[in-house]
């Protein structure tokens, strides 16, 4: 333990060091910065964190994080309830919202099938998705999962599970990204782009 500071500061540094992107050294810098800007930063931050911890919960409908249950997206009348976009994490949901490309509702799986990480079908939020797919209002399920072996294995698994439901099951296209140069693209992306080619 650092002799120059008390146990409270040490605890703060240790907790900050557990945040993504921060190690012990940068946590120490962050702690010092917070202490220096006590009124402008530290107290509002502590208040915001307390409030977030108390109020934010997972939406029982889609798994999104919000202060209300159902979340603002599920409760919104302006979103299309017929289309559900399946994503791996809340981070992916936020990414799609940033793009403003989708106006339907979401379903957060909470991970992908992974033998190494011990994530099997039971660990994923699939049962609720099957229930939502069976509702009369639902007409399309978009599988917006990562273009990785685990992500696509999960997409195929979910497509199988939804086979009985009378909904269209679609997945995101794969191919040349915006700003992408063919010379630098990997073989898999190029092959996928050729397979998904369309009339110009």
């Amino acid at each position: 333990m650092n002799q120059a500071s008390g146990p409270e500061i040490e605890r703060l540094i240790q907790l900050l060091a557990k945040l993504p992107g921060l190690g012990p050294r940068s946590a120490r810098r962050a702690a010092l910065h917070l202490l220096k800007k006590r009124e402008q930063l530290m107290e509002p931050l502590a208040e915001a964190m307390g409030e977030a911890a108390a109020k934010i919960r997972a939406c029982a409908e889609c798994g999104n994080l919000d202060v209300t249950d159902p979340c603002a997206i599920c409760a919104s009348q302006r979103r299309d309830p017929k289309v559900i976009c399946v994503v791996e994490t809340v981070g992916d949901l936020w990414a799609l919202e940033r793009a403003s490309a989708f106006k339907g509702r979401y379903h957060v799986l909470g991970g992908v099938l992974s033998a190494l990480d011990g994530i099997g079908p039971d660990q994923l939020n699939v049962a609720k998705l099957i229930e939502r797919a069976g509702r009369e209002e639902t007409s399309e399920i978009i599988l917006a999962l990562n273009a990785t072996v685990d992500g696509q294995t999960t997409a195929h698994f979910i497509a199988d599970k939804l086979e009985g439901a009378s909904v269209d099951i679609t997945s995101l296209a794969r191919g040349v990204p915006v700003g992408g140069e063919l010379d630098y693209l990997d073989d898999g992306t190029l092959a996928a782009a050729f397979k998904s080619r369309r009339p110009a």
Partner: protein
Amino acid sequence: MEWTESGRIISVRGHGETSAIVEILTRDHGRHAGLVRGGRSRSMRPVLQPGNRVQAHWRARLDEHLGNFQIEAEDLSAGALMEDPLALSGLNAACAVAVAGLPEREAHPAVADGFEVLVSSLDESGVWPAIYVQWEAGLLADLGYGLDLRKCAATGHTDDLVYVSPRTGRAVSSGAGEPYKDKLLALPGFMTGQGALRSGDVQAGLILTGYFLERRVLWPSDRVLPEARLRMIDRLAAAGMV
């Protein structure tokens, strides 16, 4: 300590925020793990997918260290398989069995060669399930638990071998095995080279190799057959291929 060799990636897991621990199946160094710095970067992610063949340069100060990999892409075939659920299930099963069944850093050239053939054939759906069965049989043999399919354990006959003893792993002919057929495992003809691939042969082969993989290789270290293998069998069954 350092070496350079080509191999197929069989597992990738994140390490910290930027790196990844990657396992590669190589011919001379077996199943070998190493840290890839920057392995979770946008440029490395497409390369570090199970099934891709890469050239790996491994370096560590001491042999027992995890060590660092420098990876260069050779054949990024995983991307091409992602659209095909059946092929992807075969790839996942083979990678999971290799990770679960092979000891680390022990050279098994025949298993690595077989894995290469298997991954290369995954785009031919009528062919690869039988190759997968043969690969698992080869893995058992290389680990010292090989099935003895040359002649009948009871009569010594070399033809009409249709069963395997679950106790010894030796072939049994139709006549000698008839009274005990409920207790014996079915031996598909393609595994002995005594016939073409017929309906039900892949399923029989998967039951056979799965039985010995589980009891001889996995159970002693308190493990079971990977779920990915079970999912592959389900998918093959759904496609009417077993």
